[in-house]
């Protein structure tokens, strides 16, 4: 394992629950590994397959999608759509020879700052163990 490996993770957070949960983690000064960049979406259901696959093809070592807990979606059912798409994306990743663990879907509510910190830190740790994405070499920004 490369000791200096600093993973690049994209985190799609829904506006109503997970983004607010991330804010709360910050307000509580919970320490979070600086490897995840947040991209806000209104609902986890907005994260289409294209966005996730683009992230990987451009060299993301991990992608986190975080939304409201089942039953709590601000738009009633969006997180269920996200969950179905997540299952599909895992299959696509296998066919791309990309470890499916590089994609994670988590439920984080607006009151779960601590959970947000745990989810992100654990995911960063997992991705660090898996190592750099094979697509990193495609990066040509």
């Amino acid at each position, binding site marked *: 394992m490369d000791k200096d490996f600093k993973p690049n993770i*994209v985190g799609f957070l829904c506006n109503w629950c997970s983004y607010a949960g991330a804010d709360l983690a*910050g307000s509580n000064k*919970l320490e979070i590994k600086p490897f995840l960049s947040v991209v806000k979406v209104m609902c986890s259901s*907005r994260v289409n397959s294209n966005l996730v696959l683009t992230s990987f093809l451009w060299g993301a070592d991990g992608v986190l999608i975080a939304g409201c807990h089942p039953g709590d979606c601000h738009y009633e059912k969006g997180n269920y759509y996200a969950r179905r798409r997540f299952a599909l994306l895992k299959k696509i990743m296998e066919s791309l020879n990309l470890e499916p663990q590089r994609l994670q879907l988590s439920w984080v509510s607006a009151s779960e700052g601590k959970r947000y*910190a745990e989810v992100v830190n654990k995911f960063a740790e997992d991705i660090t163990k898996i190592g750099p994405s094979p697509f990193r070499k495609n*990066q040509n920004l």
Partner: protein
Amino acid sequence: MSKKIGVYICECGTNISDRIDIDSLIEEISSLEDVGVAKKYGLLCSPAGKKYLAEDIKKEELTHLVIGACSPREHEQTFMKVCLEAGLNPYLFQMVNIREQCAWMISDKEAATRLAIKYIRAGIKRVALHKSLEKIELESNPDVLVIGGGIAGIEASLSLAGPERKIYLVEKTDALGGMTNKFAQLLPHQGANLSIVKDKIEQVNNNEHIEVFTSTAVEDIHGFLGNFEISVTNQEKDSEKKEFKAGAVVVAIGFGLYDPKETPAFGYGDVENVINALEFETMISSGKIVLKNGKPPASVALIHCVGRKEKGYCSKTCCLYSIKFARYLKDKLPNVDVSEFYQDLCLPDKSDQNYFEEAKKKGIHFIQSDEIEIKDINDRIKVKYKSAEGKKEELSVDMAILAPAMVPSQDTPKMAEMLNLPLDETGFFKEAHEMLNPVATPIEGVFVVGCALGPKNIPDSIVQSQAAAGKILSTLIPGKKLEPEVKTAEIREEFCTGCQTCLSVCFYGVISFDEHKGISIVNEAICRGCGSCVGSCPSGAIKIKHFTYPQLYREVLEALR
């Protein structure tokens, strides 16, 4: 027109400046394409800060604005107002969260600064792709359609009617009052003698702002919050049709009763002197409690939970009215022997326990039981049951009164289809959220109250009607226009293949299918901007304003830099 992006980094007192090296951040980003100004400021949300920002936007003739500060949940609205004041479209602004999600969660200043630079770069690249968006204003009709003239519909109408708000109260039968018309009495704490219901009906009839349509069916409802178009037909006057407009709809179509014949073990229809609760109410009204042979009963069994197992829920009201019946019987026929066969006692309200204890003192027997079977044995009713101890027992009585489960009104499926409302597994209407939004539905401006949502007593129905009225009163303010969501979905016709996947995922019934063009159409007036349709569109034909694919893609690219 060439772009001139202004980037302002807020020190937030020392909240941000202590943990992020703002000077090196500004140095990093000031040479990026289209960045005309990159500055820091002590506290941008302060009155002085807002003034400074507005003046700078004008002085520098900025075309786009990026602010690196706290979470947009804190001050995005604040700075959008500043943009408006300064003549900049507020959607040409991007707020970048470098406090909560950066400075405050990363204690290593160098690492925090690196992430802040990424975020600000992403904000700059993103804002360059922003388009001006304009708030639109929609005329809105303050009037309300109330469907169902039972106690819930009556209460909703009375709570809403006023000089600037007309109520159309549509009832399918020929009288207001709903199921209460079949009751002889209410519970003591509900006013017992039904006078409150009669008073309310009189108030409705005397209210010049309520137009009552009896014997009338709702044929069609079209439209959205503030702009529903309704047509109704009178079932008596040669199907006379009427049309009117309303801004909101309250569905108060009540409930039906489980038919005990569906479970032959209850003996209803087979065994003489087995009657249902409504038939007993009629007996109370007539003042004559008698058997088929004209004699008063010497013993009566009250059977709770008729249909509870079959339907899968408790109907909440039956325990109390069965106790009401038992107490009435004891008062009317002092020597009568009364037994209540229950599965579990439901005594949820504060006066209920006492009402039950008093009944026990009157000598009414309460028998916890299961597997009830009612048979006719030598012209007497035999109630066979399994006791709480698991023993098979039986009791002979002269009369049995069944308390059938409350079930959805037979009009529920039709109404659900007309209004595009979901039902739950019990067949009643489903709340937008059982706890957080109990009388709203996925369709904005449409509310469901009372027993149409599930079994409940009269006080709870009234609470729901007043709740829905409150929601409507605060939304449909007479003379005030509605401002729909700006960040809505938009179909790019040339890409739409007409697969209609978006129709199936949209929870709010916003998307319809244009048969002629063969494509989906978004009603932007009611779109909430979640983007579920965008996420599901296989041909990429839908975009959501302000969260377009290029905008998010830019953010992703900068994240991976």
